[in-house]
């Protein structure tokens, strides 16, 4: 190694450029404090700075950037939902996704694959038709297709699924895509950081000060902060933060597990989902099969994995693709899902003035990252809900006006 390089290594004047600025201490006050340095929190910080000119913002992250559900999902992006509220909201997200890599100048490995929701029963086919009609009404590319189209898209599939769950058709959604999840958090984080937002990792929120029904400050393990606006974007741990401000919510936490296989040659282009078999599968750019199933059957607030999960998921996967029996599972993991009774998120203002909520993201949060950032930034900046999220308010439960998304949010619920 040339000795003169050592000069740079030892000099404080020539630090290695980092993706994020490191801040040694918290400032005593910020205009907005965002709890949670995942995709949603960082995206909100990014749009607050870029579209609303609010840069005196800090993002507090207990662990590391994107280490929660942003880095634990199966990266599927789609907008073929069931309710008009959901469809319009996720459609805007898909639109934002499509030029996000350009926006960040960072490769997100955004890959448009097409998405098939397989129907093995008449009831599933009926829901598919319903979703296709709602989607078409809002100009979204979804249609019901027959089994022969599925076979053509994924020639290795056993259309009878081992003889016990024959595929009758599918809801085909052309814009369905996958992306590299870590890069999404990094891209939003870097964009926010460049515009003056402070990102504090390994900073845990211990309490939130509320005076006269208004947010006054945040207590962390690295000191106290004065602020009038707090955005809670910690899906998977939302109830803990809500307890700090005394808000009751319907959110309950179940783990959602996923796993990947060893890398194999590219053979599966589209994303396949089966509600009846409780599986979804896509092949990553590295050749790994990324697979997920339904929620764990009981409440747990940790990211432990179980053996039951790969066992049952593999059994169902082999019904669809018997030739995978020799493929090895490489790793498995779990995330904590903020579940809601109607399978729609909870977003917007809350009974505590200055406390904004972006939670209830269950198993459907990753695809919504850009639109959540954008709409929550708008909501925080204007103290008024963005029109795309008015169907997701916390008060919908008190008013018995739910946004029923159960038929489209995930598999096997």
């Amino acid at each position: 190694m040339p000795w003169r390089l050592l000069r740079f290594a030892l000099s404080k004047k020539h630090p290695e450029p980092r993706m994020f600025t490191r801040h040694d201490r918290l400032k005593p006050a910020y205009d907005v404090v965002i709890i949670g340095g995942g995709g949603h929190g960082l995206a909100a910080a990014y749009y607050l700075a870029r579209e609303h000119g609010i840069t005196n913002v800090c993002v507090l992250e207990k662990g590391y950037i994107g280490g929660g559900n942003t880095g634990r999902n199966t990266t599927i992006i789609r907008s073929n939902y069931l309710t008009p509220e959901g469809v319009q909201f996720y459609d805007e997200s898909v639109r934002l996704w499509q030029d996000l890599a350009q926006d960040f100048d960072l490769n997100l490995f955004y890959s448009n694959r097409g998405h098939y929701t397989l129907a093995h029963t008449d009831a599933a086919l009926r829901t598919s038709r319903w979703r296709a009609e709602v989607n078409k009404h809002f100009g979204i590319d979804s249609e019901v297709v027959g089994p022969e189209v599925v076979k053509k898209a994924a020639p290795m599939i056993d259309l009878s699924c081992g003889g016990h769950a024959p595929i009758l058709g599918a809801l085909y959604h052309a814009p369905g895509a996958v992306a590299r999840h870590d890069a999404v958090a990094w891209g939003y984080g870097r964009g926010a950081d460049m515009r003056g937002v402070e990102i504090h990792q390994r900073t845990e929120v211990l309490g939130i000060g509320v005076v006269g029904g208004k947010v006054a400050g945040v207590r962390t393990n690295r000191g106290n902060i004065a602020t009038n606006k707090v955005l809670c974007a910690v899906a998977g741990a939302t109830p803990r933060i809500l307890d700090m401000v005394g808000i009751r919510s319907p959110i309950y936490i179940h783990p959602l597990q996923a796993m990947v296989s060893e890398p194999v040659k590219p053979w599966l282009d589209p994303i396949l989902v089966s509600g009846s078999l409780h599986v979804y599968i896509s092949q990553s750019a590295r050749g790994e099969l990324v697979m997920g199933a339904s929620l764990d059957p009981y409440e747990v607030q940790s990211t432990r994995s179980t053996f039951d999960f790969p066992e049952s998921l593999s059994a169902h996967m082999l019904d669809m693709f018997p030739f995978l029996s020799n493929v090895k599972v490489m790793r498995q993991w779990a995330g904590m899902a903020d579940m809601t009774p109607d399978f729609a998120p909870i977003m917007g203002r809350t009974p505590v003035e200055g406390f904004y909520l972006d939670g209830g993201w269950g198993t459907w949060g990753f695809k919504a990252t850009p639109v959540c950032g954008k709409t929550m930034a708008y909501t925080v900046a204007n103290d008024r809900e963005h029109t795309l999220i008015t169907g997701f308010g916390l008060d919908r439960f008190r008013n018995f006006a739910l946004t029923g998304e159960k038929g489209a949010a995930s598999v096997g619920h």
Partner: protein
Amino acid sequence: MKIMTCPVNGPRAISEFAYGGEIRSMPDPATCSDDEWADYVFNRNGSPGVKREWWCHLPSNTWFVAERDTARDVVLRTYLYEGEG
């Protein structure tokens, strides 16, 4: 495989059981306010901690109470329901 102890049938694989949610007391629908009723219908205690929950051993249809630490996923105690208090 995780083991749960049924108070009647003894230790069994947890796949034999169904989770019934935290034990909660229902307000009287005839006298409570709409807000109290909505709170009962929808709201949950979603924070981690030791909770008293309903569980059912499916093959024998035995409903019982489990005290479980939801942060550590450890079952502390199981027993048959004997009323509140």
